[in-house]
């Protein structure tokens, strides 16, 4: 609270001539003399009006403002008679409502009185469409009425169903009859909407009685299990879970092994996904693995296998013949070895692919024969076996022809070297030069290697890198290559020369 006089006195300026210095402080004291609420007079006189913050804090505390509910104005309620439009009579009940509501408004709960759609039929329709040897018209009428009355609550309908003189009806009988009547009526009546809505309505009345009866039987039998049966069932379930878990572990171990042996190029599918999904199980498996190698699982496996094979019914053979089903007998001990497990597969997937080097020739040969290998119309076991044999034969034919060609060529070259000295000299010279060139030229060598992959390079390195799928070929090509390894260098030189020239 400083005024012009204070400023002047601080700055040692002479007071202005216009204003007298005396009235100014008095004015100040008058203005600040008003004691604020919440502070005692004595204290105020001591500290003076300077400490504004203190004064602000000492403001008299006030109660919280009362909440103003209902937007200020009182709501008037009144007891009013109302009429329920869901009723057919003139009963008037009373209730408390806000006086502001419209007395003519419809009763808010009347809208929940939804009547289900019902199907009625004339005598003519009945005789034309709905005749049934099991049902009389009277009973059908009774059924339709009771279904409407209890709003298609079938349990209640079945409970209350009591048609005097009629046979005992199960719930499925009632449902079947009702649905069939409704279906027939919908189908044979003119339909104003579109076809899809009609179909939807029809499907809402579809009912498969036999299936329902079967299902009910299952439910009942599920309930009638003895405690021993339940216990056995649970034990079996746990057993299956454990077997599945074992299976996964075996697979994982095998893949791990293959990966460590063959490296990243082993071509195995990634199993990370599998790992995540079955984390808990695998952890469990790991734990048991840690405990010590042979666990309880392995001995139990053949037991189950045996019981499973035992369960296969013998009467299936006729059915199998008729439907061309072939069952491969799994030897019980085959399940015990870990790697021998075979998941389900398509037979045509097991067809061996010809080696990439001779593949085009094989397909060409087959095309000449008019056989398409890409898609079998009927991949039965027999057909697949035949095709496999054919592919096999073609591949070996092509290879054989190759070998024969090579041998022929070798013979020609050797003959030329031996016999005809004069004209062969030139040729020999070039061949020698090429040979030397070949030996130094790494590039050419690599090319040759790539070219003749099928025959030679394979013999040493393939075994580990190839998956089981092509092992057969490998063996075959090995035998072939072992035959002509002695001639390999010269042959290659020969072929190369041939190509380059």
């Amino acid at each position, binding site marked *: 609270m400083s005024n012009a006089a204070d400023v002047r006195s601080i700055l040692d300026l002479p007071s202005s001539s216009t204003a007298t210095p005396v009235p100014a402080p008095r004015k100040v004291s008058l203005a600040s003399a008003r004691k604020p609420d919440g502070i005692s007079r004595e204290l105020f006189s001591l500290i003076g009006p300077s400490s504004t913050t203190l004064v602000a804090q000492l403001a008299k505390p006030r109660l919280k403002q009362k909440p103003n509910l209902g937007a200020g104005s009182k709501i008037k309620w009144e007891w009013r008679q109302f009429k329920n439009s869901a009723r057919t009579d003139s*009963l008037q009940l009373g209730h408390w409502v806000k006086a502001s509501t419209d007395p003519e408004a419809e009763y*808010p709960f009347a809208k929940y009185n939804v009547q289900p759609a019902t199907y009625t039929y004339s005598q003519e329709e009945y005789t034309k469409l709905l005749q049934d040897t099991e049902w009389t018209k009277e009973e059908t009428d009774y059924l339709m009425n009771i279904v409407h009355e209890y709003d298609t609550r079938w349990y209640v309908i079945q409970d209350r169903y009591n048609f005097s003189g009629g046979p005992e009806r199960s719930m499925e009988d009632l449902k079947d009859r009702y649905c069939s009547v409704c279906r027939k009526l919908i189908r044979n009546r003119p339909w104003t909407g579109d076809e899809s809505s009609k179909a939807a309505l029809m499907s809402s009345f579809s009912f498969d009685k036999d299936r329902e009866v079967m299902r009910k039987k299952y439910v009942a039998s599920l309930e009638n299990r003895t405690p021993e049966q339940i216990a056995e069932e649970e034990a079996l379930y746990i057993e299956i879970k454990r077997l599945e878990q074992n299976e996964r572990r075996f697979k994982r171990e095998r893949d791990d092994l293959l990966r460590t042996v063959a490296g990243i190029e082993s071509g195995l599918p990634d199993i990370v996904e599998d790992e995540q999904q079955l984390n808990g199980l695998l952890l469990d498996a790991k734990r048991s693995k840690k405990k010590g190698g042979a666990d309880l699982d392995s001995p139990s496996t053949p037991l189950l296998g045996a019981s499973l094979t035992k369960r296969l019914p013998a009467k299936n053979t006729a059915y199998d013949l008729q439907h061309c089903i072939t069952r491969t007998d799994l030897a019980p001990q085959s399940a015990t070895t870990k790697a021998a497990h075979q998941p389900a597969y398509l037979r045509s997937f097991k067809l061996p692919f010809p080696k990439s080097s001779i593949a085009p020739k094989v397909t060409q040969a087959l095309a000449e024969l008019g056989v398409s290998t890409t898609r079998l119309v009927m991949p039965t076991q027999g057909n697949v076996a035949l095709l496999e044999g054919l592919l096999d034969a073609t591949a070996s034919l092509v290879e054989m022809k190759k070998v024969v060609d090579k041998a022929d060529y070798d013979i020609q070259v050797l003959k030329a070297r031996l016999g005809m000295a004069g004209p062969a000299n030139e040729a020999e010279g070039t061949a020698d030069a090429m040979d030397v060139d070949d030996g130094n030229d790494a590039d050419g060598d690599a090319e040759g290697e790539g070219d003749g992959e099928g025959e030679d390079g394979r013999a040493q390195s393939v075994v580990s890198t190839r998956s089981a799928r092509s092992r057969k070929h490998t063996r075959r090509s090995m035998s072939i290559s072992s035959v002509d390894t002695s001639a390999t260098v010269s042959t290659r030189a020969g072929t190369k020369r041939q190509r380059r020239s």
Partner: protein
Amino acid sequence: MVNYGGDEVSALVIDIGTSSVRAGYAGDDTPKAVIPTTFGYHKAPLDPDSAMPDVADPTQPRPGKFAKMYMGQYGPSVWRDGMEVSNPLNEGLIHDFEPVSALMRHAIVDVMRCNPSEHPILVTEPAWNTPANRERMAEIMFEEFQVPAFYIANTGVLNAFAAGKGSALVIDVGQTMASVTPIVDGFVLRKGLVYSTLPKLVHAHAHHMLAAPNPQRRGIDLYPHQLISNKMPVEMGAPPRFTLREDRVKGTTASWRAWYEAREVDEWIQSVAGVLEQGWNDQVAASRPPRQYEFPTGYNSWFAQERFLVGEQLFHHSSQMLASNPTLPKHIPALITESLRACDPELRQVLVGNVVLTGGGSLFAGFGDRLSAELARSFPHVKIHSPGNPVERRYGGWLGGSVLGSLGTFHQLWISKEEWMEHGKMIVGQRCK
């Protein structure tokens, strides 16, 4: 308003049970009036001429077989010279409507101070009620009470509603009847309804056990306190020392005496008896702490195994008992099994998952635990709804009626007086399914 679905039209709910008549406003959580169904009366003189002065009596305007009726708080429990006692219900069904209408009038007019002609009235009935009975009830309501609207609902359904369920297996143990009622979508499955007079058997067993002498003690005198002028404190198990009010003994009727003895037994049961949670086991029963109880005569004793033997009757009947009495009422597990067997196999799991335990007789200590143990033996997924609040347990039927009667969507179901005039008795069967 529409959101919670309630719309209260000041309907009254009356639930008539064997032990008490409950009446109150729909929408409340407890009945306003709870009066004993048993009433005291003086027989009207056989000579119709001498009954005339009674007709003039303003408290009892109607002529009838009762010269005077005593109901409510100061009714049958007050000793009166030559007063007989009667109960209009037999096996849960009303067999005598004259006192029933008097009882309802007493509850509505004298206790609740209501005018029945101003309120729609919802009355309950047991699931095994006869059509004639419910029509008679409707007649009383419309003709005598002049109600604007009336509805009669099933106690089983109402008990399910009180538990907030549309489908349930209601196990109701009352004073004289134990029933198991399957409810689906608010309808009773009548084929699955089973009931027996099991509580009566339990009561009789307890009565016999107390009154008959055994090696440990003499038979206990079950004199009501109204007949005892004074008594001395005695040691535990010592013979009681009391003097009877000889002036009253003469005027006491057999029916009143029997009724009060039954009350003494009931009180003993309520304060002492229990059920073993895991089936009968002598060691467990012996290991439970005994309880003390003192009878009005001053006789007091500890009750150990006996108190569990009483409750065991609800769940198990010994083979010799079964052999000696072929018409023995079925115990609770038998009732449940029979009820479920009559239901569709698909429904059983639903019902067992929605068991509602209700009725005053289910308030036996340990009843709920024992029931769940019994059910768990044969069903994997059992869920029992049993309110811990004894009021909800005892008046579950009334509470359900209170819920139903205050629903906005229910008001279209009332049988109005107009409809009653137009259609007559038929409408009751058509409307109240």
